[in-house]
């Protein structure tokens, strides 16, 4: 009889049940979407922040003091120390290798240049900097695989009109300011000669394949493959600076402690947490003879904003959950209020308040489980759409979220109907049946 009553209440007035089920399903859908997005979005946001550029700078340890002004090193080309290019694959063998998102070595060479278009010569007076780097190269890793990286990944704000040079070919991109000043276009031939010594007598011909705009000093430079710069500098297989872009955990009070003063247990925790300082240490352990420095403005700016945005995200999730809970609770409450007459009749027929309460609660629970499941499915869909539109990725469905959502649905529907149920169980049947 009990089950029949419950079943009847669903089949007799499907329309009313459908509306409260819809409210429940929608509420739970929003809860699912909010939870799925914010569970997955933390990593995603940290990746987003890598568009700020490299956060670690590797330079030779035993270097003479660089004379760098506005991105140009005024040291003579033969001064200072270099680092071996062949070691770079070791970056992907450190403890936090998967957090190394991209890296790019830099070798700058002062050059003199001339250009040609359709065999028509163009003089380019003055000394310029040629920045040798990787645009997009496959770096051999000691474990036998390769890793694809380059400056286009470390510095995503570098826009190239045309295309990036091929690391294997004699091609280059020129800065927008440089191109404008000398009226250079894509397809022009550039001939560069190392400015100091200039032992490459004939000069190296480079095809301009793109115009680079960065908003920095590179706008007035030539950017070419690292191999070209090495030939111009007559320094095979070396580089001078390495930019590393690593996914990190924002620094907290613990991370700011000096590792030298830590207890062994603390040191282990610090070493095994992707703080920027511990990743810097690990890179220094792999690449011998280097000085790994944290680019403070990037690391700190990122840390500040990331921790705030994460907090904001959870708050928004909380707000969505709250709204969902209210919607569900309110529809549960409304559905009980509507059934005064029915409750009156049941009581008149001899049901006690407890039985009426249990009956209605069972109905609500059934509604919660069915509505919650439908809501979960809808929420996964919603999370995909939202994730795709806002963050460009789709969060994976998680069983854990389903459990939370069903639990939440049950608790909220019961809570939402508790007060009206209590009221209902106190109703005096007589006036209700009289229609008062």
């Amino acid at each position, binding site marked *: 009889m009990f089950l029949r009553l419950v079943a009847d209440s669903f089949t007799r007035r499907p329309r009313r049940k459908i509306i409260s089920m819809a409210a429940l399903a929608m509420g739970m859908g929003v809860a699912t979407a909010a939870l799925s997005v914010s569970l997955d979005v933390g990593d995603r946001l940290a990746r987003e*922040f890598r568009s700020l550029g490299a956060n670690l700078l590797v330079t030779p340890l035993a270097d003479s003091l660089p004379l760098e002004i*506005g991105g140009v090193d005024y040291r003579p080309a033969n001064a200072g120390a270099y680092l071996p290019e062949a070691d770079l694959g070791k970056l992907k063998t450190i403890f936090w290798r998967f957090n190394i998102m991209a890296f790019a070595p830099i070798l700058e060479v002062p050059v003199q240049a001339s250009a040609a278009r359709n065999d028509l010569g163009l003089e380019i007076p003055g000394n310029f900097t040629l920045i040798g780097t990787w645009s997009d190269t496959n770096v051999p890793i000691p474990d036998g695989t390769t890793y694809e990286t380059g400056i286009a990944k470390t510095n995503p704000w570098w826009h190239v009109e045309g295309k990036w040079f091929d690391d294997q070919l004699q091609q280059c991109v020129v800065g927008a300011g440089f191109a404008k000043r000398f009226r250079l276009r894509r397809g022009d031939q550039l001939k560069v000669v190392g400015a100091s010594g200039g032992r490459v007598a004939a000069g190296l011909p480079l095809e301009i394949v793109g115009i680079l705009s960065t908003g920095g000093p590179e706008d007035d430079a030539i950017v070419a493959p690292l191999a070209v710069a090495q030939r111009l500098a007559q320094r095979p297989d070396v580089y001078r600076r390495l930019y590393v872009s690593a996914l990190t955990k924002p620094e907290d009070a613990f991370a700011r402690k000096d590792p030298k003063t830590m207890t062994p247990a603390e040191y282990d925790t610090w070493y095994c947490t992707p703080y920027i300082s511990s990743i810097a240490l690990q890179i220094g352990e792999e690449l011998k003879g280097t000085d790994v420095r944290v680019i403070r403005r990037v*690391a700190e700016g990122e840390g500040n904003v990331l921790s705030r945005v994460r907090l904001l995200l959870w708050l928004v999730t909380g707000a969505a959950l709250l709204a969902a809970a209210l919607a569900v609770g309110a529809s549960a409450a409304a559905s009980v209020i509507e059934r005064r007459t029915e409750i009156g009749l049941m009581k008149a027929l001899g049901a006690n308040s407890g039985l009426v309460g249990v009956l209605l609660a069972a109905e609500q629970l059934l509604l919660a489980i069915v509505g919650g499941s439908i809501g979960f499915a809808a929420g996964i869909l919603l999370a995909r759409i939202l994730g795709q539109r806002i963050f460009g990725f789709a969060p994976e469905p998680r069983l854990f979220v389903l459990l939370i959502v069903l639990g939440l649905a049950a608790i909220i529907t019961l809570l939402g109907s508790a007060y009206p149920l209590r009221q209902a169980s106190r109703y005096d049947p007589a006036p209700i049946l009289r229609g008062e």
Partner: protein
Amino acid sequence: MPSPMFWRIVRRLITANYGRLFVVLVALGAGAAVTSALLNLQIDAKKRLTTEFRALGANVIVAPRAGNSESGAGSTLDASLFAQLPALYESKPVPAVAFLYVIGQVAKAGQIHFEPAVLAGIEGLGLTQIRPGRRTAYRSELENAPDACEVGVKAAAQFKVAAGDSLQLKNQGREASCKVFAVVATGGAEDTQIFINLKTAQQLADLPGRLSLIQLSVNATPDSVNSFIASLGQQLPAADVHGIKQFAEAEGRIYSRISGLLSSTVLLVLFLTSLCVMAGMSNVAVERKNDVGLMKAIGGSVERVVDLFLTEAILLGIAGGLVGSALGILVSIWLGKAVFGVAAQPRLIVYPVSVALTVLVSIAAAFPLRRLARVRPASVFRGEE
């Protein structure tokens, strides 16, 4: 013109069932509260995030026009430009620092072995905002001396100096000295530089009244920074004013993500609110069949009946919206403090917008009442469902 009778009926409709009134008002109020809190936070987040992004340092550079001479250290600006910079933008101060770079010979006091290093002559306020970094040593009592200097961490290691030591500086026969008050680590080119007084650098370089460049940190949204750059560029035709793209792009992208997240949450919450109210209203529709039948039987037109219910919905929406939105703004002040450490400023525009949204939601949620227009008095009186 609605008659007093009309209002009396509306009053009765609203107060007919206190339980339901409570549910509907709570739903509308909560929806309004969340909406106004998130909208207010959204406006505030933009401002706060731009402030946070200033941790990235200078975002606007005033440099000599390329082409006057060779690129790099060769060309300079007139120092009078520095005085022409606006002190305020959007009523916030604009930190600006003028730099003059000289490659000089440097040695620790008492040593005779000199080595080349970049000397950056600086003048202006807000160096820490322009050039964010961490000071590894700092002696504030030495900072205000005219010959005080700050040394990058790599340069400090090279010359083996710490705070309190003195450095001798030379350039083409001109000499100066300075006393180190801090050692700074930025992870950039600044680590290898020595920051001295602008006048000293000008004297060493024999370039009185000249600057290499000016760096500014404009605390505004990327779009607003662009208009700042455009207007400053017009004001200073002799110089090349440009923004640092590296951070502006990332900032724009991250803000649009957050903004999208907040807007979609607001939409979802409004949708939920309307569903919730709709659930209540559809019950109302069933319950009021008899009333509507009676109204029609004694000559009430369909429009009149619909007007009644619309008025009811609008009144409920206004009540829920007024109270809820006010609460939401209060909540957002507190949320702003929790997230950004600074209480969010309540924006007046948010209040009417979120009240209006709530009223719209409550009208949309009254949709089930439309069914009442189809009620036929005769069948109601016969007791047919």
